[in-house]
């Protein structure tokens, strides 16, 4: 079933009787070449790229709940490639390029909208830092523009430019950044993978790994044992719990990050604005709700909900930046569990256990990485060699002293 404008018109004229489920619901086979643990964005993207680009066959994705039931459906949908360090920026720019072509490629409307992201500047030092970051972005082939105060005023005249503590002095703009429909991304990759013959197995929780002589043979699941030549784990938020079953401790703490959406409003924010100094960022969904968030709560958590002090902190940040937000009512608040790594950067690597591969540690930045993370993880699974842009994301980089610490915070996960 291909989606097209013609198809929509045809279905409209024939009572919408031709639509079919987007994927099969197969029972697990006894064994596969590749088993991907985790049917979220990264797991589905991995399976899709494994089948499509690397021509893998006999692939299964095992998902504890339903497809896309984790962080892929709980984030604030922002896509961007505005990183600084050479270990990160080329990877995120690779991801950005995949976003730009994804909908045509997997024939599904993921509502990718390159509406631009603006990081606000309040001081000379911050301008210097953002100029440096913008140059790093340009070097990696991304786009970046440094705006002065009038440039920002032209885009968002209603911001509070003369806040006593954080007056707005300019901003770093990436026009190619934007948002995407997060569930649509999961569904697009799921459908794409299913069409290529991948078995998407839902309600199938991995309860253990079968490991003999340092080699993984398969996974124990709530639906029986499933053999596998290679197992890829992509379960961000639960990486610690899952890898513990393989006897591994990770350089990761799980933390809760909250997000919020207001009632539907008329269009007011046509891009993404980040107010780092005030721990607040905002965009507007196509339904009209203001989607916003701030920092992680800051303590280990698996609760998928946070506490009120951070809600208050985010609301204060919003009021400082755009006082008009005070008239909007909060519709929903929720939390997602983040793999906060020790340097704020992710891991895509082999593990000391032969045949077991790990994709983890995405902190609160996993959504934008969904396409490239899947591509790079698929390449690693298929060829045992890393994708060139993901070669720094090694599991042993901490022991070797090659951390990728964008914020320079050290081994303190709640500060990244």
């Amino acid at each position, binding site marked *: 079933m291909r989606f097209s404008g013609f198809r929509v018109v045809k279905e409209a004229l024939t009572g919408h009787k031709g639509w079919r489920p987007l994927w099969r619901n197969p029972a697990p086979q006894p064994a596969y070449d590749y088993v991907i643990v985790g049917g979220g964005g990264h797991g589905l993207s991995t399976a899709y790229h494994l089948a499509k680009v690397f021509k893998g066959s006999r692939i299964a994705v095992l998902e504890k709940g339903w497809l896309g039931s984790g962080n892929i459906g709980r984030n604030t949908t922002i896509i961007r490639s505005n990183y600084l360090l050479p270990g990160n920026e080329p990877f995120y720019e690779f991801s950005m390029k995949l976003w730009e072509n994804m909908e045509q490629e997997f024939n599904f409307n993921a509502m990718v909208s390159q509406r631009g992201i603006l990081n606000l500047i309040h001081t000379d030092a911050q301008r210097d830092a953002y100029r440096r970051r913008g140059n790093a972005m340009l070097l990696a082939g991304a786009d970046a523009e440094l705006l002065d105060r009038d440039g920002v005023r032209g885009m968002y005249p209603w911001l509070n430019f003369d806040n006593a503590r954080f007056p707005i002095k300019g901003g770093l703009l990436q026009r190619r950044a934007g948002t995407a429909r997060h569930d649509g991304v999961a569904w697009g990759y799921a459908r794409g993978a299913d069409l290529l013959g991948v078995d998407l197995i839902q309600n199938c929780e991995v309860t253990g790994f079968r490991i003999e002589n340092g080699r993984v043979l398969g996974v124990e699941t709530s639906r029986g044992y499933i053999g596998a030549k290679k197992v890829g784990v992509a379960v961000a938020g*639960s990486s610690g719990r899952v890898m513990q079953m393989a006897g591994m401790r990770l350089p990761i703490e799980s933390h809760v990050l909250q997000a919020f959406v207001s009632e539907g409003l008329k269009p007011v924010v046509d891009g993404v604005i980040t107010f780092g100094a005030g721990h607040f960022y905002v965009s507007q969904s196509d339904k009209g709700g203001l989607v916003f968030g701030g920092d992680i709560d800051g303590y280990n*958590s698996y*609760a998928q909900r946070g506490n009120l002090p951070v809600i208050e902190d985010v609301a204060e940040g919003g009021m400082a930046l755009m006082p008009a937000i005070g008239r909007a009512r909060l519709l929903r608040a929720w939390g997602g569990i983040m793999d906060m790594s020790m340097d704020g950067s992710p891991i895509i690597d082999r593990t000391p256990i032969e045949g077991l591969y790990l994709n983890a540690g995405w902190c609160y930045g996993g959504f934008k990485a969904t396409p490239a993370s899947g591509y790079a993880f698929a390449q690693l699974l298929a060829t045992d060699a890393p994708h060139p842009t993901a070669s720094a994301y090694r599991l042993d980089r901490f022991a070797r002293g090659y951390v990728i610490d964008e914020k320079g915070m050290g*081994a303190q996960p709640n500060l990244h």
Partner: protein
Amino acid sequence: MLIPHPLLGLRDAQEFTYLGDAALLNRPDGMAEGAAEAFNDYVYLRDNPAGVHRELWFHEQGDRSWLIVTRNTVTHEILGAELARDVALAAKGGAQ
């Protein structure tokens, strides 16, 4: 979250800053054999349990004591708090 401070009673968690797993109290001996590996474990690797977790909180906006708080990471229920000093001294064999 309210933390039952052993000296000050129930205090708002907002008065505290969070460090992490209470295992950080057990700093390895830098002069011992295999110290580099022990420090890699100490600095970077975590148990990260879903459930009961013993963790270090610093009463920054209060009496500036370090506490070990026992908390459930799935429910956020706080099960107890003790002075980190007492725990560290007890581990060294008393001298309280």
